């Protein structure tokens, strides 16, 4: 079954819908998102077209405020589009928000288990799976703490564990590793890559770290400054697992950084 979300007067949605149904891809066509009305309106996204293949890893790069978080919440279906269409096969989407959103009244384990409970996982298995996932994000021993007792990076990792607990086939991640030290981040890159392969996830990953984008992505999408448009899509044809400090990663990252810098200064000037 296909789920087509489109702005009310739309014409292209159906055709693209067929394409998505056939391939299982997430397809964005001329997506426009405007906040507010009248002279105070902000155009966050202005005609974004993007195709995310099933089982692929896509990284989104762009200046602050260019609409990356907006794009993710549109794909997650949390907000309505102004124009254009987003088209994916109806299937569960897991989202990791930019600010790690945990329920403060639940323990760390409780937050992770909630995602499992929704899926009808039994009590004993829930406990065990939550412990495993907390192990994966290196938070063993923190299961019974409350979110306010954790550091920002630890909260991000709990949110990651919960997103993985949802067992969704599409994973939307908004700067998930922004608050982590380089070592922990490296380890989590490896873990994320492993899980992505094992579960054949489709990942849409927002980051400000160009090297991280090249380290992880099959494709790296560069967005323009506000209003956001797709400026360039880089295909990363390097063998995995990649090392974030290897020369090929650094070279491509340098190229993308130059393009990003040009875009940011074009807007500043």
């Amino acid at each position, binding site marked *: 079954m296909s789920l087509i979300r489109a702005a009310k007067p739309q014409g292209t949605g159906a055709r693209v819908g067929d394409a998505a149904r056939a391939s299982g891809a997430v397809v964005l066509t001329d997506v426009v998102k405007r906040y507010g009305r009248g002279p105070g309106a902000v155009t966050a996204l202005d005609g974004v077209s993007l195709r995310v293949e099933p089982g692929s890893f896509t990284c989104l790069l762009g200046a602050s405020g260019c609409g990356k978080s907006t794009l993710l*919440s549109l794909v*997650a279906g*949390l907000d309505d589009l102004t124009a254009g269409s987003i088209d994916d096969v109806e299937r*569960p*989407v*897991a*989202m990791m*928000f930019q*600010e790690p*959103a945990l*329920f*403060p*009244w*639940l323990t760390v384990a409780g937050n992770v288990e*909630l*995602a499992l*409970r*929704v899926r009808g996982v039994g009590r004993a298995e829930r406990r065990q799976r939550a412990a495993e996932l907390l192990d994966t994000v290196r938070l063993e021993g923190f299961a019974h703490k*409350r*979110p*306010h007792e954790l550091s920002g990076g630890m909260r991000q990792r709990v949110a990651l564990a*919960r997103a993985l607990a*949802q067992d969704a086939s599409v994973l939307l991640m908004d700067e998930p590793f922004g608050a982590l030290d380089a070592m922990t981040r490296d380890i989590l890159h490896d873990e994320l890559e492993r899980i992505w392969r094992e579960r054949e996830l489709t990942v849409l990953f927002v980051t400000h770290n160009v090297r991280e984008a090249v380290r992880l992505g099959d494709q790296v999408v560069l967005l323009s400054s506000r209003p956001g448009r797709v400026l360039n899509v880089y295909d990363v044809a390097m063998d995995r697992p990649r090392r974030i400090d290897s020369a090929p990663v650094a070279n491509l990252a340098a190229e993308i950084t130059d393009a990003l810098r040009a875009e940011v200064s074009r807007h500043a000037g």
Partner: protein
Amino acid sequence: MATAVKGVEKAVERRHHEIPPVDDEEQAAGRASRPRGKRRLGPGKAIPFGYLIGPLLLLGVWFWGSAAGWIDPRVLTAPWTVATTAWDLWESGRLGPDLLVSARRFAFGLAFGVGAGLVLALVSGLSRWGEAIVDGPVQIKRSIPNLALLPLLLLWFGIDERMKIITIALGVLIPIYLHTHNGLRSIDGRYAELAETLRLGPAAFIGRVVLPGALPGFFLGLRFAVTASWLSLVVVEQVNATSGIGYMMLLAGTYGQTDVIIVGLVLYGLLGLGSDAIVRIAQRRVLSWRRTLED
């Protein structure tokens, strides 16, 4: 050597009590003049049993004023007279039953009021239709004092316990409803988004997100409700009763027994303070996940 060790001990002790260091040695050692771990803004660390200090001060003034002869015992009975009167009343078996009757009315009124207020707040907080139907009448009730309702309630329910408990419950219902409803509606929108991406069903959303999120509001309402319950109790017992602390005071008033009246007032005060303390302790425990200036 010995003095150095002693100095360290002293420093440790001082930090423990969070008194700002005034030692020249520490200043010279480049320590910050502000002790570490202490927040500069906000009320500071909780004082153990701090909520007792104000009432005890009041009691002290009363004692001192009576002992020094500044307070005429005909106007305000001395505290020791009140104590002996209370003891005599207790001994003669007059205070015990009255106290029990009052406590029962308080407890039942509070329980029914909290229950009703909670149900109404949920109905009106969770659905627009519920709000359209429930909110208006509650706001109307809110602007009518219990005292004004009393004649009507008397006509409807007579003068038995039922009428008293209903009157108290009506007073309790309002703060519970207002604060719980407000708590429900002011839950951070991000939690709803989060619940949506987690695909929580309506039941799980209410049970795991809405109710815990509304708890801070509910507890605030509960504190007002406990007060409201005592206030309504006084009204009910002084307007129409043949038992209870209020009735005891009313009777004492006609015989000019100031000391008995004061015993009643002190009892109301103690019970009010005690029940508020219980609610606060419960609030602390249940809302331990919050980080507020309270901690």
